[in-house]
């Protein structure tokens, strides 16, 4: 059914991670919209109980239930699911053992408290298990229910532990049902059907974390996806102007004349306004220089890159569609 040629054809599980503050949830949501475009069905999953998807789509808190939240351009559907580990455990027990009642009893005994406290590896298996189940799920006609699943995953610092369930659980359960379950999850997560995308800003710390996170991911044998550079500001000034501005050189006289011509200021006032605007230009030039250096650092990653614009009005629904369009235009979906 795939008529478009994208960088991630064949990928069904898109895991989106990033340092806190980089806009990971926004990018995950926009990617889901982009993947759904043209009549496809995509599930957007969140796992950290933050209700970030609901906030971004301006909806009331999502229940533990797959529900349609948005229509993509040209008629695709985005469904969303906020995974609650407790409910995921009940699902798991029912699905594999037909034991819903026993599951309830365990829940009452505080086993989920236990899992979050003592063995987060167990919790992660439940969450990734539910996600991969949605990836594998097939309708009666044998076709997959979802064309793609997008997971708004934990931040870069925790992503490898989170996905590397087999490793995390191995210390606790060498054999037995949990081990089997985690092997099943691992089979999906480590396959070419999965891609782990990193969201970053062109700033030092997020870029460094991306490179560190990527190295960890690779050494764990997990499949890296693309790098989404978020909140990119377009550079309005010619490179030559920026280069000299970094060194503190700028044609204030020309700017003063321009301000006068535009009727923004006159006389001595124009010169003063020009001076203060030059301050802004120099700062912008420095930032641009740093951004260039950070882009160069990202070359090491050797992954496809996508740049998403900074939305002047912040992230709202219209902004999400704008980002989704940008993602499609760049061939990421």
């Amino acid at each position, binding site marked *: 059914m795939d008529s478009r040629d994208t960088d991630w054809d064949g990928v069904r599980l898109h895991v989106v991670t990033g340092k806190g503050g980089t806009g990971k949830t926004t990018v995950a949501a926009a990617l889901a919209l982009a993947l759904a475009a043209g009549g496809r069905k995509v599930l957007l999953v969140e796992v950290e109980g*933050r209700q970030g998807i609901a906030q971004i789509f301006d909806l009331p808190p999502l229940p533990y239930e797959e529900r349609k939240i948005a229509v993509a351009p040209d008629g695709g559907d985005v469904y969303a699911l906020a995974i609650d580990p407790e409910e995921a455990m009940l699902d798991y027990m029912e699905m594999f053992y037909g034991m819903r009642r026993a599951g309830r009893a365990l829940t009452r005994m505080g086993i989920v408290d236990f899992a979050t406290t003592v*063995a987060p590896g167990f919790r992660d298996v439940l969450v990734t298990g539910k996600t991969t189940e949605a990836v594998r799920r097939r309708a009666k006609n044998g076709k997959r229910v979802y064309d793609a699943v997008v997971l708004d995953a934990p931040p870069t610092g925790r992503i490898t532990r989170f996905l590397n369930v087999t490793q995390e659980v191995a210390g606790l359960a060498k054999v037995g049902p949990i081990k089997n379950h985690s092997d099943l999850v691992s089979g999906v997560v480590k396959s070419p059907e999965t891609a782990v995308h990193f969201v970053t800003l062109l700033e030092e710390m997020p870029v460094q974390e991306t490179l560190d996170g990527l190295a960890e991911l690779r050494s764990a044998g997990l499949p890296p996806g693309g790098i989404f550079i978020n909140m990119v500001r377009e550079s309005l000034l010619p490179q030559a102007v920026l280069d000299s501005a970094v060194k503190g050189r700028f044609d204030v006289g020309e700017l003063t004349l321009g301000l006068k011509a535009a009727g923004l200021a006159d006389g001595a006032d124009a010169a003063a306004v020009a001076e203060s605007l030059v301050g802004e230009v120099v700062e912008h030039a420095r930032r641009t220089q740093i951004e260039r250096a950070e882009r160069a650092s990202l070359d090491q990653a050797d992954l496809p890159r996508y740049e998403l614009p900074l939305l002047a009005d912040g992230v709202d629904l219209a902004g999400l569609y704008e980002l989704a369009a940008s993602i499609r235009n760049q061939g990421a979906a």
Partner: protein
Amino acid sequence: MKKPAPLDVDAILDDRGTRIIVCCGAGGVGKTTTAAALGLRAAERGRGAVVLTVDPARRLAQSMGLSELDNTPRLVHTAEGGGQLFAMMLDMKRTFDEIIEAHADPERARQILSNPFYQSLSSSFSGTQEYMAMEKLGQLRRSDEWDLIIVDTPPSRSALDFLDAPERLGRFLDGRFIKLLTAPAKAGGRSAFRLLNAGFGLVAGAMTKLLGAQVLKDLQTFVSALDAVFGGFRQRAEMTYRLLQAPGTAFVVVAAPERDAMREASYFVERLAEERMPLAGLVVNRVHFSPAAGISAARSAAAAEDLESKGEHELTAAVLRLHTGRMQLAAREHREQEHFVSAHPTVPVVQVRAMSEDVHDLAGLHQIGELLASGA
């Protein structure tokens, strides 16, 4: 926006009664940098400060001369007036091991430390890190060797996790599930069984199916061994909790002028009030200002368009476009802060302007300290 009271950072640092400052807030807002800058400024103002950090970014750690997790405060800087800055990175596993060793006899400690469940618990990130940060804070404070302790809370899912972690651990330790697991190991365990009898067969069956027999056995060994040190645990958690409510503690909530971070800051302020924990104020990092704020975004955009349509003064038009963007950003940031200020009009606030580069050294930290104190 109604102007909030300014947060007087120097007054807090100069007050000898301030013994603990807790920096908290969402991830990615510059919490660690704020904590380190406060520490340096405290030293410059004659205090003996120690900054306790959890998982700092590498360059920032280097700026304080921290290269490894070694769980011991290291001297970073001695200021002219004799004030000092120490810093340490939390080693959560080691901190946990030490608690076990302090509370269990050697044989039992050995059993616990080698159990796979303990190893998972003590090296996992969620909950344990928060709990151990609070434990370490309690240790440093009780030793009474430190004039001022500044703690940077862990980068958790929610900024509130570190307040909840000790309680969650306590609830877990007191939970029925644990009682069930420890019951067979206890003398008189039968009565506990009878108490839980209703669901026990069902649960035990489910557990075995779910976990497998070996896992269940490891778990029981672990829990019964840990059981012996529970009392000590809870008591320590409660002591630390009370320490946080004491008058010598000041909570500084850190945010960036973005929706999520400000919302998190709001939750946090409300939560601190509920817990009767002393809030000093809010630090908003990375705020954008314009040196030419007199020209509004609308005027700037109109003038740029005018020049562009006439095809003259291209450079000026570009500069005005840049300025328009800057003013729009400033306005958006202002709106995000406005929500907070109208909801919490009495909370003192200080804004720290955005810098083009990250902090790499003490000079950078010093500069942030100046901005924190002067509010710009």
